[in-house]
């Protein structure tokens, strides 16, 4: 049975529950003089404990596995970009840090599978709050976040990352776009991850 506002609340709801389970809220009696002196022992003990500090520039501890760091624009297995220039990331961004301009994939200048690719892709790290809403918005998993956090720089202009700063590096078996799509495939095959690598015919194709 679904609870609604008309159902009477149980006796131990909210504050009443807290009050019944723990100490009653009363005026605190001041603790004795010697009990108060125990605080000095706490700080004295702490002097001999191991500090929590990480000596950062010399020692770098790995981040949490899902730490929100610098963004990355991923590639399909044959090297084509996953970004389709839909701008959903830019729309999702609460800090207005992302600029995307899409363009059509032309014959001989195929950057991503399908019709469109992101021609301009900029992330302004002066504005980015690393909330990850852009990653949630991305329909092709083109945009993800790495664990890289050392993003400080000495000029504002250096902190606007362009597409080539964000693109994932080419791995083994990948080809530098633009190049044609895998023979006999369409954007659906790419999307379902059925393209497992590049085909020799993609390499020999004439570059634009």
């Amino acid at each position, binding site marked *: 049975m679904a609870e609604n506002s008309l159902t009477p609340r149980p006796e131990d*709801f909210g*504050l*009443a529950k807290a009050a019944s389970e723990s100490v009653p809220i*009363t*005026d605190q009696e001041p603790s004795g003089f010697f009990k108060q002196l125990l*605080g000095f022992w706490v*700080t*004295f003990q*702490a002097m001999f404990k191991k*500090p929590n500090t990480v000596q950062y520039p010399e020692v770098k501890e790995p981040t949490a596995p899902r730490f929100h760091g610098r963004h990355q624009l991923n590639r399909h297995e044959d090297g084509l970009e996953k970004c389709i220039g839909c701008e959903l990331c830019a729309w999702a961004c609460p800090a207005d840090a992302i600029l995307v301009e899409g363009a059509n994939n032309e014959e001989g200048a195929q950057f991503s599978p399908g019709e469109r690719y992101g021609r301009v892709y900029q992330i302004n790290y002066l504005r980015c709050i690393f909330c990850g809403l852009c990653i949630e918005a991305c329909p092709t998993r083109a945009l993800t976040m790495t664990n890289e956090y050392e993003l400080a720089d000495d000029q504002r202009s250096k902190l606007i990352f362009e597409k080539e700063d964000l693109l994932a590096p080419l791995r083994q078996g990948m080809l530098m776009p633009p190049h044609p799509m895998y023979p006999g495939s369409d954007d659906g095959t790419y999307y379902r991850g059925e393209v497992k690598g590049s085909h020799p015919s993609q390499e020999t194709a004439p570059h634009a």
Partner: protein
Amino acid sequence: MNAAQLIANDPGWVILVKGLLVFVLCVVLTLMSVWGERRLVSFMQMRVGPNRVGKFGLLQSLADGVKLALKEDLIPKAADRIVFVIAPIISATTCFMAFAVIPMTGKVSLFGHQTVMQLTDLPVGVLYVLAIASVGVYGIVLAGWSSGSTYPLLGGLRSSAQVISYEVAMGLSLVAVFIYAGSMSTSDIVAAQNHWWFAVVLFPSFVIYAISMVGETNRAPFDLAEAEGELVGGFHTEYSSLKFALFFLAEYVNIVAVSSLATTLFLGGYHALPGLGFTETWLGGWFTMVWYLLKVIFFFFIFVWLRGTLPRMRYDQFMQFGWKVLIPVSLLWIMVVSTLRIMSQRNTGRPIIMGFTVGVVLIVLAVTSLFDSAKRRRREADALGELPEPSFPVPAIPEPRVEQLNG
């Protein structure tokens, strides 16, 4: 020859050299204490503190000083320019002056001249220190007033009220020392502690002095004058660059100064710990300075420990503590001490002295238990539900209360 005679025989160049040495010692102690405090407090908070500049970060305060010196020196438009400049100078100079009467070593030879490491030996040396400390308050008051801004004014007023109230308690705690030493000269007081330190003989005085010296130097938990959460920086909010550095310097020199005075008056000054008296002749007597420094560092550690442990007190509690606890207690203690002293001087019989002591203890116990029961009764009266009914009509409190809290 005693210390006073030795000092009186100093030629001019020895005085100059000693003055320079004392000044250098103060500055070095200050730099080291800033570093030491930051390191110690960080250990208490499980951090490591400054460890970059120099070995273990030892040069950190030097780097900070250079940074402060190179910063822009701002004087607000609303400030009274002359007073604004004079205030930090007053603060910094007065705290150095207190060191003139602190005995740092026993008899030593300085470039072949027999002397003691004490710049001058006034017959009223301790009074001189208290007077200098009072002049130092002017630095704070004038800084707060001349800044032409609200927070510094509030901070300056607070700290002047604080320093003045705690100076009363401090002065009273010293009276017992004067009575027992029979002198106000610092070297005589040290000499009077040959057998027993005054920290043992006059323990209540020592405790009162130790508390009031924290209040006097505006340090945590009595750092109401620069309560960052309430008053930004307190009296030095509007100060920058070297003028701020002077206040910073003054604060730490002050800590070292009150610690030195405590060492001199209560911990036997430059004398070695009991049982280690043979060390006093090492290095031609210069080893006594190590004892002096160790005792000062001990007090400094207490300062840092207090800061690391206690939260800041509320202003009214603080004043109440000073005026209603410290001052009456020290007045009572002085009465007891002076009575005992006179009795022993007149060779009063042991039973009478014992009777007097027991009587005082009984009276103190009776008064404190009366206070305690009064407090308990007040607390019970204040308990929820026993509040007196107001004379004007009020809406009934809904029952049960928890239901109301849940909305």
